[in-house]
């Protein structure tokens, strides 16, 4: 059974179309990264998956209809949006008490174990903690929930590099175990390129690219063409070309690696470069604003 299965998922706010027929399938045990320009529909898609908004089309999450069966779904799903959502008045001990009191799959000892390593005091209020500490607190709460699906919406927004790295390290080492599924959106795509198993680009309410990272590496390649070989490289039909330090960098979809490597240095493109190539310059133009 797929963890998430969407067909023709659509959501409009008045005349604004936020999701315009999204088809998406996420298998169990995958880590899917969703990239998209601001207002592309990422948050709307996550809100639909989490049963936070009604939608048109077909959507099953863990075999449930997220809107109609939200109360059941939330026992098996954990989610975390950017760090600003933990109530500022709450004490760390109260957060532990509350989640322990309402969540049947919360392991309090585990959460306290994670907190042990951070030096966050039980009596502290959220407003007294730094952004990085709030993120660690939230992550400790979320990781102690034995959820089958974890949804992260810009979880590291506003955190410095060290905290971001620590965040994903903890997620991978202490949480992910191949039976869980993780869906994450972020703008810091390069940092999680190695973490992901799958990738989807969303633009103007549509999925414009969906592939596994194995496919990604087999399919896309980038060549920094030698000065004399640029024309030959262009003849092979690159999907995108850009200039860097006076050299042309051409991006190919499904090109023959041996053929291309004769023209210059070949490598797998970064997600950000591919994103620019696929989503292109029209990205973020308002056909459908977010929310």
């Amino acid at each position, binding site marked *: 059974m797929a963890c998430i299965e969407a067909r023709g998922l659509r959501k409009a706010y008045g005349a604004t179309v936020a999701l315009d027929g999204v088809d998406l399938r996420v298998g169990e045990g995958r880590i899917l990264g969703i990239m998209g320009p601001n207002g592309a529909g990422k*948050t709307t898609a996550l*809100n639909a998956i*989490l049963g*936070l*908004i*009604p939608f048109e089309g077909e959507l099953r999450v863990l075999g449930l209809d997220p809107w109609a069966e*939200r*109360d059941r779904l*939330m*026992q098996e799903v*954990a*989610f*975390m*949006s950017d760090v*600003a*959502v*933990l*109530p*500022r*008045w*709450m*004490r760390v001990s*109260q957060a532990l*008490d*509350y*989640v322990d*009191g*309402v*969540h*049947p*799959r*919360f392991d309090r000892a585990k959460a306290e174990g994670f907190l042990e390593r951070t030096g966050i005091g039980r009596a502290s209020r959220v407003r007294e903690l730094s952004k990085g500490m709030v993120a660690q607190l*939230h992550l400790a709460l979320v990781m102690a929930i*034995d959820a089958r699906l974890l949804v992260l919406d810009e979880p590291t927004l506003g955190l410095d590099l060290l905290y971001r790295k620590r965040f994903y390290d903890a997620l991978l080492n202490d949480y992910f175990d191949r039976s869980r599924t993780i869906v994450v959106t972020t703008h810091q795509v390069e940092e999680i390129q190695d973490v992901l198993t799958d990738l989807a680009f969303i633009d103007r309410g549509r999925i414009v690219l969906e592939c596994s990272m194995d496919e990604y590496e087999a399919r896309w390649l980038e060549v920094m063409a030698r000065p004399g070989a640029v024309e030959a490289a262009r003849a092979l039909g690159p999907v995108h070309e850009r200039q860097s330090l006076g050299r042309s960098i051409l991006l190919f979809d499904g090109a023959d690696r041996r053929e291309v490597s004769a023209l210059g240095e070949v490598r797998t493109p970064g997600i950000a470069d591919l994103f620019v190539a696929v989503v292109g310059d029209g990205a973020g133009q308002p056909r459908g604003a977010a*929310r």
Partner: protein
Amino acid sequence: MSPAPVVLPGEPAVEVPEAAPAAARATRPLYWSVRRELWENRSVHLAPLAVAVFLAVALAVHGATMPSHLPGMLGTDPAQPGSASALYRGMAVLMMAIAFVTGAVYCMDALGGERRDRSILFWKSLPVSDHATVLAKAAVPLVVLPLVTLAALVALHLVLFLLSSAVLPAQGRSVAALWGELHLLSLWPTLAYALAAAALWHAPIYAFLLLVSGWARRTAALWALLPVLALGVLEKLTMDTLHLAAWVTHALIGWYGAAFAPYARERTPFHPLTPLTPGSFLATPWLWIGLALAVAFVLMAARLRRYRAPG
């Protein structure tokens, strides 16, 4: 599948426990949702307690600085039997008014606050239904505040009585006579009954304010009060009547007339000789229409919380 013993070289045998089927631990979403409200809104218990402490201190200071006022204030005048309890009962009226205001203020921000600070995204990430959340919020003015008020009143009355017992013997008056006059042991159940009646009577007001706080993006208080005020002014200007004003007054204080029979010598409510009339209170159509409205408002507030996109 039986647990397989795993033996690693150089290590003792380790029993790998079978993956336990995620046993559904018993949870109490409603209870913890109420706890959450009390953590966040400490005014709910601090306001009644602060007023009670203030009253006790004010009376003590007054008695200490102006001892000549003491007999009159404590009402132990043999010429006016029954007046001793007027002070105690007056405090009950004041504390109930404070409880109502506290509850109304709480409700006006109860559903707007979590949206404004975006913590709704945290609350909604947990398996607590919108109905449980809104019900917990409604329970604060309907259950928690009356209980806190009653406790504060009993404590205040006891403090006041102890104060009197310290002063009265010096003036040659009997503490036992004061105790006999106060009827505290029947006043307290009467106050419990009054608090329950008022909570039920005010339920539609609290529920309406909850609904408005869930609906209005900001300034819920204005959205709740201005239309009523405007309609009242309009009625006065166009028809020169005050039906709406009378209606609002009835919604605020009508419960007393319904829950207690009138008593001729009563100047302060809850006089010991005032008969309780729970039967006729429960037979008042206004009460049941109000409760039906309250249920409808709470359901609408829950629906609004569910349908509105968070953040």
